[in-house]
């Protein structure tokens, strides 16, 4: 059984462009692999931008490509960083990262997603945060999270990647939680961000 939060697309049109990367856990520490998150986000963003419709005005096309690359790489990097940080690596669970290209008339939507595994305990905590995020005014929540951690050098405002995706990139977020078929103690979480580009 799965649980859905926010705006989550389960079925995509049969014919649409998409790309998925898969990362297996490695013997190298996460710090050494960290740069790969941004490089992967750039790669996916560049890949996506080639499918943008042709604009007759070359300057406008260039601006749109640049803005799209920026949006997809920022949101993608945040989703991937979160997935890598929270992934339960003990059972060699993979992290997946990708994008779907949806086009309806003039409207192009990038659907960026990650899939990773977490413990049932972490899933409950994450779901509580998601409920807070979906109920709150995200602009106010941003200021609150910064103020909460302001005095401590070692802590960072939690959920800031998701908050900035909503506030600054007008992303619509959604999540799916499913119990892993191989282990009932593990939950597979898919995070999805839809941004109109």
């Amino acid at each position, binding site marked *: 059984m799965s649980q859905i939060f926010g705006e989550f697309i389960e079925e995509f049109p049969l014919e649409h462009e998409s790309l998925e990367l898969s990362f297996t856990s490695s013997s190298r520490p996460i710090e050494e692999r960290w740069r790969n998150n941004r490089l992967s986000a750039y790669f996916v963003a560049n890949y996506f931008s080639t499918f943008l419709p042709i604009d007759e005005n070359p300057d406008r096309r260039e601006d749109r490509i640049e803005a799209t690359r920026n*949006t997809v790489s920022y949101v993608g990097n945040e989703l991937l960083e979160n997935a890598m940080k929270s992934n339960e690596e003990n059972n060699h669970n993979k992290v997946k990262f990708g994008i779907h290209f949806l086009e309806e008339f003039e409207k192009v939507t990038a659907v960026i997603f990650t899939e990773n595994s977490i413990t049932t305990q972490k899933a409950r905590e994450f779901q509580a945060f998601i409920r807070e995020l979906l109920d709150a005014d995200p602009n106010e929540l941003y200021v609150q999270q910064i103020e909460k951690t302001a005095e401590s050098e070692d802590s*960072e405002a939690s959920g800031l*990647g998701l908050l900035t995706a909503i506030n*600054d990139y007008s992303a619509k977020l959604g999540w799916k939680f499913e119990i892993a078929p191989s282990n009932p103690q593990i939950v597979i979480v898919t995070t999805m961000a839809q941004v109109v580009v």
Partner: protein
Amino acid sequence: MANPEVKGDDYQVQYEPASSTVYFKGDITLGSPKEYVPIVKLLDQAANADPDTLTLNVKELAFLNSSGISMLSKFVLGMKKKKGTQLVVLGGKKVPWQGKSLKNLERLLPGLKLVVE
């Protein structure tokens, strides 16, 4: 003497005391608040010199992840205590994230002067 700086593979943060300016360049996507500490220390050094105006020039900062935005936001909030210093953040329109995210800093410090040109 060379200006104090923090450098990584893909970025550089440099404090220029003569102009009370901190320059950010490249892509900064460090993984944790702990990794941001050297940059925070450099910013604190610049703020503790109590200049009339302190400028953060991010025009050449192409990428900053949310941990970096958190670090910058916390520094800006901390500048509330430094009443004698005008904080200026200098961004560039050519870098799309700056037009989107820098405005958040104004909400944390209403006296902040944000210039995106």
